[in-house]
């Protein structure tokens, strides 16, 4: 008989406990009580990091573009990024739109790092325009310098095989799957080998800036292609 009594009592106790917990949860859900103190509202995203670029005259002095070209560039830049800076995600999105078949995000990441010279995580208009100035109006030396900077991921002055492999994979990723002939898995690696054979003069496994510039200046194809995009703006 005691068992029966305990059973019913036990059931009742369980029921009461469950009910109390459920009601507490419901009240918490309804926002009437707060358990922890971090019930701050969702943090609004850091809205509009406003950034205003340097004046037109300074930029004219810093870069090799004239006023009109800077105006055109700024209008395009501001249209896409009204806040005045590009962060990495937006950059990736923009760049990926030019390469719809493949995945351009890795290369865009490297490109972003190459443009973001002050390493603050965002590319402002000055960074953008200075990078473009080198690419479009710079001397061959400067362009090669820029390319070396792009390949040197950790910016230590040496391009290692792993860094080059990352870059190469990123470039091949942009091609996507549908290529002719079919991309094999070790195509990037082979390409890196070819590159290192050409560039690495002292065969020490890394390419320094001087080796790189020397080798490129001796290669006709590369020199010609450096002039290719002179009149883009």
């Amino acid at each position, binding site marked *: 008989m005691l068992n029966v009594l305990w059973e019913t009592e036990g059931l009742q106790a369980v029921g009461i406990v469950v009910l109390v917990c459920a009601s507490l949860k419901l009240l918490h859900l309804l926002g009437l009580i707060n358990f922890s103190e971090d019930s701050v509202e969702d943090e609004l995203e850091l809205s509009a990091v406003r950034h205003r670029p340097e004046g037109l005259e300074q930029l004219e002095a810093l870069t090799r573009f004239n006023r009109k070209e800077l105006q055109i560039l700024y209008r*395009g830049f501001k249209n896409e990024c009204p806040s005045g800076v590009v962060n990495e995600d937006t950059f990736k999105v923009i760049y990926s739109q030019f390469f719809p078949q493949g995945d351009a995000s890795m290369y865009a990441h490297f490109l972003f790092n190459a443009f973001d010279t002050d390493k603050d995580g965002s590319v402002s208009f000055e960074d953008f325009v200075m990078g473009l100035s080198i690419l479009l109006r710079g001397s061959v030396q400067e362009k090669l310098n*820029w390319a070396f900077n792009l390949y040197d991921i950790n910016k230590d002055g040496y391009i290692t095989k792993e860094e080059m492999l990352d870059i190469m994979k990123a470039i091949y990723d942009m091609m996507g799957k549908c290529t002719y002939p079919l991309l094999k898995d070790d195509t990037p690696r082979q390409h890196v080998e070819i590159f290192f054979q050409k560039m690495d003069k002292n065969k020490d496994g890394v390419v320094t800036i001087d080796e790189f510039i020397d080798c490129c200046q001796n290669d006709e194809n*590369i020199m010609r*292609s450096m002039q290719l995009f002179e009149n*883009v703006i």
Partner: protein
Amino acid sequence: MAAGVAAWLPFARAAAIGWMPVASAPMPTPPPDNRRKQDGLILLNVSGQKFQTWRNTLERYPDTLLGSTEREFFFHEETNEYFFDRDPDIFRHILNFYRTGKLHYPRQECISAYDEELAFFGIIPEIIGDCCYEEYKDRRRENQERIQDDEDSENQNDMVPPDMTFRETMWRAFENPHTSTMALVFYYVTGFFIAVSVMANVVETVPCGTLQNRVKQVSCGERYALAFFCLDTACVMIFTVEYLLRLMAAPSRWNFIKSVMSVIDVVAIMPYYIGLVMTDNEDVSGAFVTLRVFRVFRIFKFSRHSAGLRILGYTLKSCASELGFLLFSLTMAIIIFATVMFYAEKGSSASKFTSIPAAFWYTIVTMTTLGYGDMVPKTIVGKIVGSVCSLSGVLVIALPVPVIVSNFSRIYHQSQRADKRRAQKKTKLGRIAARKSGGTSAYLQYKSNGLLSDLIDEASKAAGQALVCKANPMFDTHHNHLLHCLEKTTNHEFVDEQTFETSLLEVSMAKHPPHSPSLSSGSSSQGLSCCSRRNKRKSFNVPNSNMTGGHRNSIQELSTIHIRERPITNSRSSLNAKFEETVPLNCKQPYITAAVITLPTPPVTTPENDGSASSPDYSQANIVRVSAL
């Protein structure tokens, strides 16, 4: 690609320098850059409101009007701008599309005006941004429905094709009782009998006092069994006749049988026949009694008579998903609460909650706030659960109800709007016709002023303009001259309607072609009806003013044209036979008789022989056929 991203193409190209040192093959030469011209401002003047933008902005979308060379057609040299005679408010949105790459739909604009502007500027509406796309699609759908409604109602009400078979007339009478008096009478009679039948079913069960030998009350049905049986028989006979008539008249019998109303009709009259057929077998009579329940479905026959009922049914059908959700959530809640109640009340003595299904009844009664009180919880836990149950019941039921209500309201207002529109349209057309009739006989008036002779044309043009002074005298003058040219071409004249009618009557009485009596007997009235109908046909491009005046002659004109073109179609084999018998008659008497006689030759076969190129040819043949009938 978004427009703004196109501005980053130079950057992407510049960044390609990063690939150069690792390239395995030489690069291709870049395309010649011939957009060396400066990026200038373009001035767009839209009905006086000036918009300016960069040339490059517009050229982002070269397959639209503004982005292609098509805009050069609108260049205005004197002011050195592009002038568009369109709506500036809507143009604002179109220009914003070029600027931002996103097309928005302004809510306050009329959807057809907006569509027209988009079509003019060569922009497809599918690129409307997600923010406005839903609204746009909704409005468009509403507009389409409205147009569809108008077309349907027009087809129903205005079209009285004279060659409807008896079956089609009957079907039409059934569907729209307002078309003829007979249909109206039939409609009310059936309505009356439905009501009588339903009332009889109800009154049948009322207790009617006691019989002599019994103590128990008997129902009226048992007391006056014969009377009720006769009444039932009469009603069922009417319903059966109605059903059979509808079945006979239906254009598609299979569809009719499948439709809801026909099923209701069948279900309503079946019990009677089954009752007749069945014997007084003890076992079966129980089932028979159940069948009599179906007699109550006769009340659904009222839905043919009441638009409100139909709307209700339609609403329930369209809210099926909400109703389903309501049902599902209720079931879930019932099961949960019944289970909890059962276990809560298990301990208490003499509890009515003997099982979970037994607790279902309590839960339902509590959730719908009925509260009969036949089952009440006794334990404290049970009472707590019971209160939670009733609170949540109110919530669960109240949630889907507004959705259903709003659906009903929308459908109801839609149907009201359709009716209102139809009524408004009639008055609107009437008013427009009244205003137009002032100007229909402009040409005839012009003629009657004796101003048609070529000699005095120049002098009279000025006088004519003074007499017929409208807002657009130049247009009218040229128009009148055009009609005059047509008269001279065909050597016939336009006349007004009265003259035409009188001549028609004369002709039909004077000449009775023996082999087509039906034509002549009905020719006058039908001719007039077809003429008036022809006016309303939208496919005609001939202006109304022409046709009212020139019916008689235009038919002859067309028949003469028809004649002239006959030699071309002579080569078609199927027409050869008809040719011989018609040609001589046509040539001799170029008046109404010709039109009358050409008709046994149904040009229906022509579509098979004629290619699309000759469609104007046989459409004229069609015209002849229609008009002469």
